């Protein structure tokens, strides 16, 4: 019986997502493919990040409000390990690891950062972790900004995209020519969605395994878990690291989507975006974030129009203001009226936990 309910919800989610994509075509008479690709790329990257956050909040009930810093660690570590140029002077580093090696190290670094943050806070009450993660994200932002010699600070890092684009197959170039969008972005888009696919498969397998079972038990009753001889805190830490690693991967993809990276990218607003997406898609479901992400990005990009209407000649700041205002409203609205989002099940939610 539960299976039927899932299918129904799933179909509904598919319909809503399909409709929103159709909306994009409707509202943008020219350049629709280009806009759509852009949207799908961001949706893929943020969707992946939200999947990671969902492991924290949906699977384990952990409050992480510094998610952007996990993405950032993944991005910066990976980029710095490859040939790149950084800083105001554009200091060039020609040596480095091959892309895949750097990527793996970046993901591991993000997971380790998760361990670092989790150690003091996970054994404590939920709100402590929230505070620690926000604080850590702020420390990360400040360090990235000030350690200019390493991270390039506000001038950032450039000249790294070739490390990944060199692997781009020619059929991507052909399709891109056909539809009129950027082949570089198409490649990143493909990578993002392939990553999502692999991650989802991995997580589905994991959730049915003994480890997944143990994590679910922790979510149910930590004391009982301890009475059975298992270390609940360590299990939570592991799930924290897993989600962090996934976020790290999404951070790298984001960096390659932008083509240049500097200290204003991985900021708290990013974290709030991912939270909104996760709640919208359905807390606790593996695929929920995917739908949430697509719909979210349609909403965001189309409501930019709203800003233009409100303020004739809206400047960048006002645009951003309206955007984020809506994100705030969305988060509040969902949490109050529909915390299970699109795909989530109300019974699965941990929200009554203190």
């Amino acid at each position, binding site marked *: 019986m539960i299976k039927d309910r899932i299918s129904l919800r799933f179909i509904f989610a598919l319909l809503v997502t399909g409709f929103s994509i159709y909306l994009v075509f409707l509202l943008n008479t020219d350049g629709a493919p280009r806009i759509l690709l852009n949207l799908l790329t961001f949706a893929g990257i943020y969707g992946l990040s939200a999947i990671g956050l969902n492991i924290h909040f949906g699977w384990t*009930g952990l*409050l992480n*409000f510094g998610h952007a810093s996990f993405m950032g660690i993944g991005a910066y570590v990976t980029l710095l390990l490859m040939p790149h140029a950084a800083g105001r002077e554009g200091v060039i580093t020609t040596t480095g690891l091959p892309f895949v090696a750097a990527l793996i190290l970046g993901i591991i670094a993000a997971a380790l950062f998760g361990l670092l*943050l989790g*150690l*003091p*806070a996970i*054994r*404590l*009450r*939920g*709100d*402590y972790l*929230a*505070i*620690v993660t*926000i*604080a*850590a994200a*702020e*420390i990360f932002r*400040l*360090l990235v*900004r*000030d350690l200019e010699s390493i991270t390039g600070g506000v001038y950032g890092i450039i000249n790294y995209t070739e490390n990944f684009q060199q692997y781009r197959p020619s059929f991507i170039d052909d399709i891109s020519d056909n539809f009129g969008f950027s082949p570089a972005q198409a490649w990143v888009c493909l990578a993002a969605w392939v990553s999502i696919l692999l991650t989802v498969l991995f997580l589905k397998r994991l959730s049915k395994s003994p480890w997944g079972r143990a994590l679910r038990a922790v979510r149910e009753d*930590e004391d009982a878990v301890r009475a059975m001889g298992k270390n609940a*805190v360590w299990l939570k830490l592991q799930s924290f690291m897993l989600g962090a690693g996934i976020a790290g991967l999404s951070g790298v993809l984001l960096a390659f989507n932008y083509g240049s990276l500097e200290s204003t990218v991985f900021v*708290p*607003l990013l974290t*709030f975006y991912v*939270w909104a997406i996760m*709640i919208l898609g359905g807390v606790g479901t593996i695929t929920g974030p995917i739908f949430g992400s697509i719909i979210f990005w349609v909403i965001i990009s189309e409501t930019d129009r709203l800003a233009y209407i409100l*303020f004739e000649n809206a400047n960048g*700041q*006002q645009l*951003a*203001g*309206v955007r*984020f*205002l809506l*994100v*705030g*409203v*969305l*988060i*509040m*609205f969902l*949490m*109050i009226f529909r*915390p299970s989002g699109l795909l989530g099940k109300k019974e699965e939610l*941990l*929200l*009554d*936990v*203190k």
Partner: protein
Amino acid sequence: MLDQLGNGLLLGIIISVASVALSLLYGVTRIVNFAHGEIIALGAIMTLFFSSPVDYRVLFLDKFSPLGLNFAISCFLAILVCGLFGGLLEVFLFKPLRKKEVGNIAVLVVTIGLSVLVRHLYLLFATGRVQNFPLELQRRQTYLFFDMTPRNLKVLIAGIIVMIIVGLLLTYTRLGKAMRAVRDSEELSSVSGINSDNIILLTWVSSSMLAGLAGIFQATINDVRWNMGFLILLLIFAGTVLGGIGTSFGAMVGGLMIGILVQVSVGLPFMEGHAEAKNAVALGIMILILLFRPQGIFGKKERIS
């Protein structure tokens, strides 16, 4: 170093006032209000709006003109507005949520969403520019050990006085006792005739007014920014954690210490040229404290997991 001590005391007293406000709210409602920073900012922004000269165009689409009122009156009105805002939040948002028995985690996320929403309303209303109260510039003078402007000294003294008054009110008045009763048990207190809804409303109003005051202080010694609430919120958390969550006294002391730590750290050798990152030092200390002594200096060692 001594230089920074003066700045540290100033920042410290501001964080103290704001921390006590947050701690008060948390103590009675058990809500960690992430939108607290925005109430602080509201105090500053409202004062700016009330007191700026009538021809000063800085606000929403140039369509609103400031009221050009006397500064002291502006502060007073702004604090009232903050109290009103807090009251409205309780009546229209948090009380319904409480009645619906929404869990604490959900409420926490709601406050975060609220803070994002309100903060960007400020961005639209007051723009991203750094602005200042319409007060003349003053010279720093030497008082005892520190150099600071006469106005800042007034802020410091006012802050201390407010702290003392709040402390006395909480400990000795019937209201204060009622607040503490509701904190300890909502059911029990309603049985003993205390209307917990009213107490909670009162707590929201007074916490918001205190927060607004802290915002005015902060804007007086620094400036008014749309995201000033968010910037100070982290330091408030640090102060509260350091002093001990749930104890007002702890919040006071913790806030003071964090303020001093932040400013003093600017003088440390490795901070050379990175003065902006002074906040990071305070935050790092907070994380360390959570590692070794999560209940803070004055908190009780409750089962915090």
